[in-house]
């Protein structure tokens, strides 16, 4: 396959075969992660800048690890986490990066569209590491990798995504991709976090988790931002957990060997019980490993590596 992308801003830019291609490319990358010497010379001399404007240990470290294994020089730009408006504008940051001739930029930002904004200004490729409530394509890709590996495929599988759908870039990117890959997706959450306009995604939405669980091959929990309670979006953690909290008991209602995904970090006892998070069906740690592999594959493809020369 001819890889034609320089950026990855959202999952909808990729066709189903392109998504499959990234996942395919990630397979040997994952093997590599288990080797004693985890280092390739593939991207030696290339530079990657990580611009994380929001707190994120997991995604940032994942990109950093992925880039370093491939041999690229990875620079973490320390960005003030408190306020995006403080100091240098994103436009000037882009100019600075341009002047440094960075080859690839990964950005995480609280504003929807920040990655697209940067891509417009830069010659370098841009990976969206999460922008506002808009998109998180690499999370979606690693979720697809996990689903495919564990379920043997995605087409025809029933995936239930539960939680704060309204504010979730993970849910948006997952739904867009899962639809392309032929999965049946159901979104579940309380009306305040799953308002009617989310119908734009064109998948089933429901307020009743227990009714949607039967037949689910995978359930994906989303992190609940606890400050949403202060804004009145849900009345209490107690009631939220009663209605939407994922437990082993509840997951048994699927009638299948259902796997559990969560983008992390988890709120134990809120959207997910501790015993379920630590159980065998939980993919949470596996997702972290897969995240590195998928990001390696993506970085490799975006930086112009030939399709079949990955590990030669």
């Amino acid at each position, binding site marked *: 396959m001819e890889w034609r992308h320089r950026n990855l801003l959202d999952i909808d830019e990729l066709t189903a075969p392109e998504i499959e291609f990234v996942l395919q490319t990630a397979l040997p990358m994952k093997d590599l992660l288990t080797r004693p010497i985890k280092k390739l010379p593939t991207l030696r001399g290339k530079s990657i800048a990580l611009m994380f404007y929001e707190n994120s240990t997991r995604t940032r470290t994942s990109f950093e690890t992925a880039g370093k294994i491939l041999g690229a020089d990875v620079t973490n730009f320390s960005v003030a986490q408190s306020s*995006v408006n403080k100091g240098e504008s994103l436009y000037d940051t882009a100019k600075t990066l341009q002047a440094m001739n960075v080859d690839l930029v990964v950005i995480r*930002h609280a504003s929807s569209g920040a990655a697209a904004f940067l891509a417009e200004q830069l010659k370098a490729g841009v990976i969206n590491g999460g922008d*506002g409530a808009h998109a998180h394509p690499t999370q979606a890709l690693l979720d697809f990798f996990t689903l495919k590996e564990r379920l043997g495929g995605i087409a025809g599988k029933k995936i239930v995504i539960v939680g704060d759908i309204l504010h979730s870039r993970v849910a948006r990117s997952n739904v867009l991709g899962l639809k392309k890959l032929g999965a049946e997706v159901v979104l579940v959450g309380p009306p305040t976090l799953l308002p009617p306009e989310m119908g734009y995604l064109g998948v089933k939405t429901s307020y009743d988790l227990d009714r949607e669980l039967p037949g689910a091959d995978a359930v994906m929990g989303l992190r609940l931002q606890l400050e949403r309670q202060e804004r009145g979006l849900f009345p209490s953690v107690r009631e939220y957990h009663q209605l939407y909290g994922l437990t082993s008991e509840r997951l048994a209602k699927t009638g299948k060997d259902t796997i559990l995904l969560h983008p992390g970090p988890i709120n134990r006892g809120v959207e997910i019980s501790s015993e379920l998070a630590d159980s065998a069906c939980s993919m949470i740690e596996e997702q972290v490993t897969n995240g590195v592999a998928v990001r390696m594959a993506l970085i490799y493809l975006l930086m112009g590596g030939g399709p079949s020369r990955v590990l030669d």
Partner: protein
Amino acid sequence: MFWIKDAHLLDPAQGISGRGSLLVRADRILKVTVGEELTAATVLTLLGCSTLEEVTQVDGAGKYLFPGLVDAHVHLREPGQEEKEEIRSGARAAVRGGFTSILAMANTQPVIDTRALVEFVRLEGERAGKARVYPVAAVTKGMTGKELTEMVELKAGGAVAFSDDGKGIQNAETFRLALEYAKLTGCPVISHCEEAKLAGAGAMRKGEHSARLGLKGIPASAESVMVARDALLAGETGGRLHIAHVSTKESVQVIRMAKAAGVDLTAEVNPHHLLFTDEDVSLTNTSHKVNPPLPSRADQEALLEGLLDGTLDLLATDHAPHTWEEKTKPFAEAPFGINGLETALAAVWQELVVKGKLTPERLIELWAVNPARRFGLVGGTLAEGAPADLVLFDPEWRELVTAETRESKAHNTPFLGQELQGFPVMVWVGGKLVVKDRKVVG
């Protein structure tokens, strides 16, 4: 003195629409004829001249001649934010766009809430010598929504209306008292209807498109509930209310009901709400970021219907200049506002008049006659004896919108780099030529 010949005269105030001539002596319209061309002898007699050489003749063939437009909603940013616009640059941009009178909103820094500041705006407008600049003074001191301003004093300084435009007055009692107290002045209170808690930190209209883009949405109710509140308060108090930038179908319904009940209420629509919808919003084009946000398709249809059936009374640009730096940001962080004075008429002409959705007559009624009447301004008509505030409009003139040709200091328009059709080619304010061949004179 001059003689504009053979133009298509439009003056809904007098029911005029047809080929004719217009004579101007000094600063006033002297004679208007429709259907019959004036003879040279008549012209000389009327103007009191001996030869035609003393009379400037303007060929109006193929063009419309209508009263200078009156824009009831303009942000000139001076004092305090001159990097965005100045009174002078705004007044120049106005005439270039066909507006001979503009109402300058009070949300400057400092807020226009004292007589000295009102007079500053008025005098700067006079010094600019282009469009007539009418100050709108704040309703509350410092626009804090608490204490009323000295409205009588402000009117004496030149204010023609009161508004805290830029934000809604959240306290209903304050707004009720404003409607009552403004009766001392006879001036309308202009309400920027936006319920702050509902609007939240939204960046565009709440709906499927905001959900798709992951942008926080502003529900239509953020506007409509306050339109309803203010209409009820105007009915109860008998105050004079003008609703700024109506953008939802529910607002239109409420205004229709209020008017049927006899409330002293008028309402305006901004061209961009008629020309774009929330579907046009993209994450990387902040020139579509405006407040109230671009409406849904159904809202847009209701707005046009309201303009046609008389529920909505005027068009107004809500000219809101912002610098390139401010707008060159991710969508959620960029300021709200569209720069409108120099493109609004052409855009409405091209998209609504040419396409048959709005007649030229109704256009002039909405943008000249009605605003002049509502705010008690001179102009807005071609009546004999009225000030010669005139626009000679070429419906065929095509022009590329570029930063270089513009008079406004800012260029935050969705039309930048696009060609529009239908522009004022000559404009007079008080008989003085201020635009000639699309260029501002002087």
